[in-house]
């Protein structure tokens, strides 16, 4: 009896997951999008040897300034234009903050972890300050969100393909573009000259410098590009997902993104899978309450509180870092500022 209990539970779990999949998938995709984009930022920065724990702050700043743009231009230009401009501003915000982080870590050779901590505190302060000063007193809310594209009825009613296609297109442009970003970054990192240089600079900057690669320029480029993508993650939160801004609304997503980077062993596809896994953990916590499973499994899953599902990504990361499930090794020169010989 006891021997059979566990396989039966697993079987029930598989059946249950299959049953709730149509409900689960959109939630997973929505939750994983900012994580995956943030993780791409982490991969790009750390592959070139710059630790960035300020992803959370960069996402928050970009989310705010993107929202502010959409919010101010909403009435005069209409939702589509305002939101597109907002996304542009968010990406630009990310890039500018990336420039700041690159200047601090590459040129000034300030401590990278302190620089990231500064970024997080600054983001919390600046967004909270401007939110209280500008958005709250105006009494208006909402920058509008991008309207998802709805599939024509004939296509959506196709068996099998229809629902999947509809669900994918329901996600909005930023969420849909994530997979493209991931694939392009993966290819670029491992199949192009730029990628080779990035990895060289991150593993052994001195050797890279010797063969004529500009270490500083490479690191600047990567950090700025990465942070621009983190800015897109911020835009997703305010302009695609919720259409509003709350203080501290990133809620630790930047840190889970950091965890996804480690989980994915510093590869774009790996960290995307990590983001999906972490998204699934949180999504399960939601779905279990909406569609409880039947039988023993239902009792078991109900007995695990929602907060445990939400805490799962953090606990998984610690277990992975501790080397319990295979070691995860970062680039060799990650976190170490580079100084040309003879210069101090």
């Amino acid at each position, binding site marked *: 009896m006891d021997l059979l209990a566990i396989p039966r539970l697993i079987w029930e779990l598989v059946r249950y997951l299959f049953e709730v999949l149509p409900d689960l998938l959109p939630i997973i995709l929505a939750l994983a999008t900012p994580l995956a984009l943030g993780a791409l930022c982490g991969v790009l920065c750390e592959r070139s040897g710059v*630790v960035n*724990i300020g992803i959370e702050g960069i996402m928050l700043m970009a989310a705010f300034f993107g929202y502010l743009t959409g919010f101010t231009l909403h009435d005069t230009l209409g939702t589509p234009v305002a939101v597109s401009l907002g996304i542009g501003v968010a990406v630009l915000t990310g890039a500018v903050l990336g420039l700041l982080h690159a200047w*601090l870590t590459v040129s*000034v050779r*300030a*401590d*990278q*972890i*302190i*620089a990231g*901590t*500064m*970024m*997080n*505190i*600054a983001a*919390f*302060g*600046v967004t*909270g*300050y*401007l939110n*209280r*000063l*500008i958005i709250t*007193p105006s009494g208006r809310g909402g920058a509008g969100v991008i309207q998802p594209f709805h599939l024509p009825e004939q296509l959506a009613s196709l068996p099998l393909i229809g629902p999947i296609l509809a669900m994918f297109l329901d996600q909005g442009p930023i969420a849909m573009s994530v997979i493209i970003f991931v694939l392009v970054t993966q290819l670029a990192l491992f199949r192009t000259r730029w990628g080779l240089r990035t990895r060289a600079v991150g593993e052994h900057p001195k050797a890279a410098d010797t063969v004529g690669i500009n270490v500083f320029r490479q690191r600047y480029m990567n950090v700025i590009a990465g942070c621009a993508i983190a800015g897109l993650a911020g835009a997703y939160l305010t302009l695609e997902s919720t259409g509003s801004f709350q203080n501290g609304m990133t809620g*630790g997503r930047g*840190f*889970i993104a*950091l*965890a996804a980077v*480690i989980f994915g062993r510093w590869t774009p596809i790996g960290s995307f899978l990590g983001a999906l896994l972490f998204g699934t953990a949180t999504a399960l916590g939601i779905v279990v309450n909406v569609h409880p499973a039947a039988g023993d499994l239902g009792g078991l899953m109900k007995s695990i*509180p*929602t*907060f*445990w599902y*939400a*805490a799962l990504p*953090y*606990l998984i*990361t*610690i277990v992975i*870092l*501790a*080397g319990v499930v295979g*070691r995860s*090794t*970062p*680039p*060799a020169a*990650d*976190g*170490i500022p580079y100084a040309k010989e003879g210069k101090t």
Partner: protein
Amino acid sequence: MRRVRATLAPTWAVASIPVYSIVLAFAVAAIVVIVSSAFTETGFDPLLPLKAYGSLFAGAFGSGNGIANTLVAAAPLMFGGLAVGLGLKAGLFNIGVAGQFLVGAFAAAVTGSSLANAPTIVGAPLAILAGAAAGAAYGFIPGYLKARTGAHEVVTTIMLNNAAVLLLTWAVNDLVRAPGFSFPRTGDIGQSALPILAGRNLHLGIAFAVSSIFVIRWVLDRTTLGFEIRTVGANPNAARYAGMRPVFITALTMTLSGLLAGLAGAIQMLGVIGFYAPGITASVGFDSIAVALLGRSDPIGILFAAVLFGAFRAGAPLMQIETSVPIEVIDIIQALVILFLAADLVVRRVFRVRAPKVEITEMATVTGSWGGTPPASAAR
């Protein structure tokens, strides 16, 4: 006069960059305030920063009540700053103060509320011990993992911070929720509250915090343990060849650091908050990092930095009421202080500082170990 200058010179050499950083941070924040004032209803006001800083100062030091509030806000920052500073001395960056603070506050609240009717002399010490133990345990986890497996403490403590928020919310909801309230919270600490020494809110924890500054200073400067901690921070390999145990010291320092952060939570709970509810935020976490960096991870420096940031927290509400400059300007100033400390070449250019570079050299050990080399890797 010359003798005075001679004794002050070394102090100024260390303190000049932090002091100039604060001045520069206030100046840049003033620009932010002026520019942003153009977007409000009251309109552009170039004198607004002066008014705002004036009421900030008045709120923090202008009255007996203000000074008391400053000290009350500074007490947990002293413990938190010591927690981060002690870690830095051993080459460990404890970003986990926020989580350890919450765990400590929670443990103190649960113990305190279960002893709510016991005499203070029993309840308060036990609640403080519980908070310290919980913080220490929560600090031990990343310390042990760093020592044994090389898992970087910055990542593990960030994860533990977020996990702590969620798990404590669950614990308050499902395990220790006090009956009779409309929202999830623990019971009142009642008699376990720290005694008030003077005025309305000057509780015993402040004296406790100030004395801990000198205890930690003594430990670091005068004991074998302190010497070992500093040596491991400066150079783990040298420490090992000198016969010290970097693995043990790493785990122990993180545990002690967590203990101090847990104490910060405990005294805040027993002296100020009174019950644990999931909403309590730990701005102490990030504030402590700023305090430790500004204080150059030196206990006396941390004492001054904690009072300064405590004054910010205490004076900010009055500033927001009188001048409607948002409280969050404090966070901006704090971030700018850290920015200028990290990029001290800006400060040197602006103020033409010629003092020799005084760095927290142990930070090199912190970021350099991002690649996951446990301090004992060569020994195993």
